[in-house]
């Protein structure tokens, strides 16, 4: 399998082509083709993972183009890092694609949805297999495109169309930085392959401040893609896309690509002088982990809460990588992919049933939708880091690494863990407890769950609940592959030579569990037992509440600085072109015409004749001046 690993991404690409051109005429209106392709790709990914666990490695290189002195060599790499991602993306994407059959049923653009999903799957698998910056960048842009197309899938909704535009442009700012980083690395190393770039670190061709700057510019791409502060503003809006898209692209895979990139390019960050680049990665991650969690507390839109949660968890992964917890960060990427995909799919199941995203209009769903409820709870426990669910092992590993590296960052992480339990507890009690509070606002736009608005809350069909159950089993059990008690098989597979995980620390462990438990207790006190009413808190902490609701005014600042000021600059540029530069040209023309008017009585004829005469005159003068 490893020597033909390029087949894996090609399968969904073929499905994309088929569904695009024949769409509705294919089995399942194209859905079955997409599913077959991604399931085969997942099987391939698992086979590769099995082989890699057994020690297989491969690096398949090709010449992309031969231009200039050095041909550009690119290739696909099979190593533990890519194999784990391959298997994860394949499996999660398979389940989500199957789920979509139920979720998207009845949508007028049903085949187009599956075509986009297949294109995305191709792009993501391609990105994961890249052994070079060119393919990473190519996959990076393509997943960004798919994200754009799928956020804007219901393009006739203005909010969706705007969100798509915003997502593409904001992430493209990050890609701009990444491209400069790539150009810098190529300048010094003459290659785009990671191997060659890392080799240059050893020879001294790459190092010093130059390396730090280049690494951070590359990281800029990751900041955009993984919605880290300050390029995080697109992700909450991206929830305008259909919920399976949020699960696949904006939770499990694409947004994690930034973390994967840092892991893939890890030596660049690690070997920058004094770990400077790595330290910045850690701080960006830590700050995002905490800030995003604070925003989730005041959000009423179910999916947006999960979006902030994703941002926050991606922050944890960056934090983990930044504090030398290489395998901890990647482990969290894996477990998060599972439980966050599950949370979104379960949320989709809810939205499908109640036709609203507003958790305050839900309630009582535990009884109406038991499978959705129990799987959601399993994922929530995993997210909040309650032992022995999956997230406990991975988040704890990150916090342990932070504790060993930098206590301030550890405190940020700990505070984030507390808030995670608080906002998830709030969400659970609003959505599932009490009585149903009415669901959709009548007359709301079509979209998620549109086909089912008429009925009351009800459990979703099996095509949706079976993927939920499979993911729930993983959310419960997957953590053990990183448990020290079992010898930490994940950590032995995904490790960075020279970095060993810090020894277990009972005190730190107890504190992180305590923080999570305290968050749950606080949520219970506020939303279940109402020891303090949330309304009272909101009134008493009015300024803070407003600050959070306005998302720290970041969107407003960007609007003023970039959108409005940008529009002004654009207007000025347009005016300059029309009136100044073209004005000068026309003034010259006018002057010439005036002169011509004066002369017109001396001659008769057409403009062309004049020009011809002028041309001949020049020729004569030049010949005269130069020849003699």
């Amino acid at each position: 399998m490893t020597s033909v690993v390029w087949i894996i991404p090609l399968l969904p690409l073929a499905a994309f082509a088929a569904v695009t051109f024949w769409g509705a005429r294919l089995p399942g209106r194209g859905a079955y083709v997409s599913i077959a392709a991604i399931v085969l790709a997942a099987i391939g990914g698992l086979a590769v993972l099995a082989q890699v666990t057994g020690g297989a490695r491969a690096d398949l290189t090709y010449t992309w183009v031969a231009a200039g002195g050095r041909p550009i060599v690119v290739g696909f790499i099979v190593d533990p890092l890519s194999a784990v991602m391959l298997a994860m993306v394949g499996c999660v994407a398979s389940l989500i694609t199957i789920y979509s059959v139920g979720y998207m049923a009845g949508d007028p653009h049903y085949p187009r949805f599956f075509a986009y999903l297949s294109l995305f799957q191709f792009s993501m698998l391609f990105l994961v297999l890249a052994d070079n910056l060119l393919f990473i960048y190519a996959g990076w842009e393509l997943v960004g495109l798919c994200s754009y197309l799928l956020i804007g899938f219901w393009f006739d909704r203005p909010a969706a169309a705007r969100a798509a535009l915003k997502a593409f442009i904001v992430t493209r700012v990050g890609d701009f930085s990444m491209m400069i980083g790539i150009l810098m690395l190529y300048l010094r190393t003459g290659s785009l392959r990671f191997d060659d770039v890392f080799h240059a670190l050893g020879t001294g061709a790459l190092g010093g401040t130059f390396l730090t700057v280049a690494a951070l510019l590359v990281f800029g791409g990751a900041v955009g893609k993984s919605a880290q502060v300050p390029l995080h503003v697109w992700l909450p809006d991206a929830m305008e896309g259909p919920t399976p898209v949020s699960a696949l692209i904006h939770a499990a895979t694409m947004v994690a690509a930034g973390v994967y990139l840092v892991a893939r390019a890890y030596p660049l960050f690690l070997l920058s002088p004094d770990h400077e680049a790595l330290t910045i990665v850690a701080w960006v991650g830590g700050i995002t982990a905490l800030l995003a969690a604070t925003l989730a507390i005041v959000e009423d839109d179910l999916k947006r809460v999960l979006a902030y949660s994703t941002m926050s968890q991606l922050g944890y992964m960056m934090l983990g990588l930044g504090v030398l917890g290489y395998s901890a960060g990647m482990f969290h990427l894996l477990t998060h992919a599972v439980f966050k995909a599950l949370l979104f799919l379960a949320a989709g199941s809810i939205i499908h049933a109640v036709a609203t995203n507003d958790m305050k209009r839900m309630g009582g769903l535990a009884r109406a939708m038991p499978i959705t409820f129990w799987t959601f709870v399993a994922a929530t426990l995993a997210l909040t880091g309650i032992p022995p669910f999956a997230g406990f092992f991975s988040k704890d590993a990150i916090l342990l690494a932070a504790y060993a590296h930098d206590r301030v960052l550890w405190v940020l992480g700990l505070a984030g863990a507390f808030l995670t339990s608080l906002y998830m507890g709030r969400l659970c009690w609003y959505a599932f407890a009490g009585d149903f509070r009415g669901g959709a606002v009548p007359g709301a736009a079509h979209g998620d769950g549109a086909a089912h608005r008429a009925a009351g809350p009800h459990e979703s069909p099996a095509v949706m609940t079976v993927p939920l159950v499979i993911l729930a089993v993983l959310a419960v059990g997957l953590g053990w592959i990183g448990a020290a008690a079992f010898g930490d098989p994940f950590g032995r597979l995904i490790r960075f030579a020279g970095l060993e995980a810090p020894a277990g620390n009972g005190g730190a462990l107890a504190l992180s569990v305590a923080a999570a438990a305290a968050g749950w207790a606080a949520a219970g006190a506020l939303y279940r037992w109402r020891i303090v009413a949330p309304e009272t808190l909101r009134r008493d902490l009015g300024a803070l509440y407003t600050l959070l609701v306005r998302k720290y005014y970041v969107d407003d600042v960007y609007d003023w600085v970039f959108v409005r000021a940008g529009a002004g600059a654009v207007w000025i540029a347009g005016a300059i072109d029309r009136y100044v530069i073209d004005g000068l040209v026309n003034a010259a023309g006018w002057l010439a015409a005036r002169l011509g008017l004066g002369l017109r009585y001396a001659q008769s004829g057409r403009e062309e004749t004049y020009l011809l005469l002028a041309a001949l005159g020049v020729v004569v003068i030049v010949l005269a001046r130069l020849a003699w």
Partner: protein
Amino acid sequence: MTGVLSLVLWLPAAGALVLLAVPRERVAALRVTALAVALLDLAAAVAAGAWIDPARAGTLQLVERVPWIPSIGISYHLGADGLSLPLVVLTALLVVLCVAYSWRVETRVKDYMILLLLLHTGLIGVFLAQDLFLFYVFWEVSLVPMYFLIGIWGGPRRGYAAMKFFLYTLAGSLAMLLAILVVYLHATPRTFDLVELVARRPLAQNLPLAVLAFWGFFLGFGVKVPLFPFHTWLPDAYAEAPTAGSVLLAGVLSKLGAYGFIRIVLPLLPDAFRQFAGLTAVLAVIGAVYGGFVALAQTDFKRMIAYSSVGHLGYVMLGVAAAAAAGGGAALGDAAGKALTGATLQMLAHGIITGALFLVAGVLADGQARTGNLTEFGGLWARVPVLSGVAVLAMLASLGLPGLMGFVAEFLIFLGAYQVFPALTVLALVGVVLTVAYFLWAIYRLFFGPLNARWAALPDLDGRERWVLAPLCGVMVVVGMYPGPLVAMINAAVTNILGLVR
């Protein structure tokens, strides 16, 4: 197989002669004949491509050389290499598509088709001529039919646009003629033969005169590209020209200038060009960034594409300038090769992509929509999915999406140019972000949002329009995914040219 280049060159002109004999009112016969001629010419161009030995794509092949006016050293000298041949094929392809698209032209069909075919010969001639006099003749020949195409079949402000285009380019041509004469008069023996001139490089020892000649060429080619600040004829001409005219203006005429820089200035006046490469790069980058800003300000679809062309041709010239600046040093040989290969590929990519964009804009403006005002559209995707899909594909290709043709070109330019002009290249990348912004905004205004009820009956692309756009889409995707062979061919040619520079 000598003679095939002459065939490619003169077939359209011969077709124009044939059309002269067809009565004016036999519109169908006129159209079919023109299309047949264009198709035959495309076949001949492709055949010429098949004859060329890719392993030797760096040297001129299929050469034809016959003395024309021997007393002053003018010869009929044609030749093709990896630089000119793809441009010839591009021209032939676009003319075929333009003729097919122009089925809807109803006024003065005979004149229209004759002018189109004459333009065709002029354009091919510029790319094949290896004699400066011949080059100049074809350069001027290509100017006249376009003037009439804009002036007669153009939009409401066609008279203004045509005259502006004509005066601008004529002024540039005169400067170029002066430069040609300077070179000619200092060659011993006197000759206009480009190959001989490049081999002898008459002005190598006389830098002030070389600089003078450089500025002559610079004005001539710079206006044609166009380089900032000589670009203001472009939006008027592009927007007012009939659709086929816009396609050929953007697709081919804008390549003449950059081609001239690469084919003539770079090998003939390397030292002078190197001296002003920095300035050229600055103007190119201003064009890239400023073009992006002004494109964002446009509300007319065609004008937006026109300014986007200013930006994209800025990348081309950045690549050319980087190659000119780097040409001297062996250390930067890789940079020069990548930048120049990228620039050439960008010329082709821009021809294909912008050609497709103008055709889409034409379908809207010439067809039932009768407008190109972006603010009047909205939600078209739901109504015309094929047109929307093609337009979005072309816009994505234009904004440099990997997997499509434009990306390969831009990436090579940036990879090469960054090694020579790092700061300017970073600025040019700002232009890429702007490109993303204006195209996505155009997509948003055209295709997203609720469907404007005015367009509830807008027809999608018809069969002929699909056939016209399909080849362009195919090339975008195929070259984007598998650029190797085309890049190798171009690289061989530019390596040879850069070898001459050194």
